[in-house]
């Protein structure tokens, strides 16, 4: 994998010999034509020049975005086998979506400023494999293969609100209607309707629509 060194000039193009109908893009990217394997619903807007700077997926439907979504300043950092599915009426601001396998978002999902959502750890945990990985990622390792990395898909269900500076790590499912407070680092599944805070994230209550203040000692 070329890691961070490629540019958006290397975006995969549609295969002209393909017999299937090309994906229709009804929405818009403010900085040009969407990559061929990105399918965007009507009235959806993607901003930011860097949106596809680290997009390297070769999957036929690498990103499927619903209608009436706003992807404002979102980084779609997708590896060669990555796939992202996003429902309708989602609003993401300055989120970093790191996908090596799969990220799935439901409808009406809100993601706040500087959030990171990743379906892998990007590097191996085993110390000996990490040495191999460091060499493979270096300028001297261009022809060596990186060790395989564990990937576990992330699922964010309908009506979830994720606050600014939050982090969702691999394999997490956030149940419908949950409220992830700012700065949370979520490593484990969140049951539907939970209110979650902290690093590591803990359940602090129900997401019942009442906003109680989070004072010290409360």
């Amino acid at each position, binding site marked *: 994998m070329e890691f961070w060194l490629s540019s958006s000039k290397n975006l995969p193009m549609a295969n002209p010999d393909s017999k299937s109908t090309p994906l229709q893009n009804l929405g818009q990217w403010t900085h040009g034509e969407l990559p061929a394997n990105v399918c965007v619903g009507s009235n959806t807007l993607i901003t930011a020049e860097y949106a596809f700077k680290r997009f390297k997926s070769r999957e036929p439907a690498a990103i499927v975005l619903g209608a009436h979504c706003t992807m404002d300043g979102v980084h779609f950092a997708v590896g060669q086998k990555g796939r992202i599915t996003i429902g309708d009426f989602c609003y993401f601001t300055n989120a970093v979506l790191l996908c090596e396998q799969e990220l799935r978002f439901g409808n009406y999902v809100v993601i706040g400023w500087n959030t990171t959502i990743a379906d892998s750890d990007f590097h191996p945990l*085993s110390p000996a494999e990490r040495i191999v*990985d*460091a060499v493979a990622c270096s*300028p*001297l390792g261009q022809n060596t293969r990186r060790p395989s990395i564990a990937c576990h898909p992330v699922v964010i269900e309908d009506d979830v609100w994720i606050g600014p500076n939050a982090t969702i*790590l691999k394999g997490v499912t956030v149940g419908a209607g949950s409220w992830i407070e700012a700065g949370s680092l979520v490593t*484990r599944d969140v*049951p539907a309707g939970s209110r979650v805070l902290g690093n590591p994230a803990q359940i602090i209550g129900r997401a019942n629509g009442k906003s109680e203040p989070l004072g010290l000692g409360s």
Partner: protein
Amino acid sequence: MTAERRIPDDWFPGVIPENVVLDPTAYLETTYSFQLFRSRHPTALAIGRGASIYLGVMFDLGCNAKVSIGDYVLMNGARIICDSEITIGDHCLISWNVVLMDTCRLPLDPRERRAELEQIPKRNPRQASAETPSQPIHIGPNVWIGFDSCVLPGVTIGRGAVVGARSVVTSDVPPFTVVAGNPARVIRQLLPNESAADTKTNWSNSPLET
């Protein structure tokens, strides 16, 4: 006088300072990383074989600072704040937005801090003086530091350790452990020769209890 060293295709029109020892096999993405570099130490910064220093890495070095970066180190956007010494061992993986700071740059005592803040606007450039005590940071070989983490002054991270994303490391990290959280606590022990298969079977993300 030695010729100025520049980086081909650099988006920023800067030079590599003379007291930076850069291995020919290392990759340095931009000279913008030296915008806050003020060290006058003869070997202020040494970058090892096969290392890669990407855009976003900032070397905020005070005038006596010394930083050494080992072989095959991958630095993907870390901010190094150094007034004394920071060493990074071979094969380290340092993710984006990581802060390695050996000093707080401003006094902890409010009265002293006020006095310093009143002096700063009189200086050009407007910087805090390097009189706040600094404690070196030593990061062993084969350490992996997750994104958005902070390593505070005086910390030593043992070889093979892993610092989870968004951690704040306030005290020494034993070798071959995984630490995470704010403040960082040991959450797992690794074996040096642990195979990838062992590592995978030990992972689970059981749901949070309500």
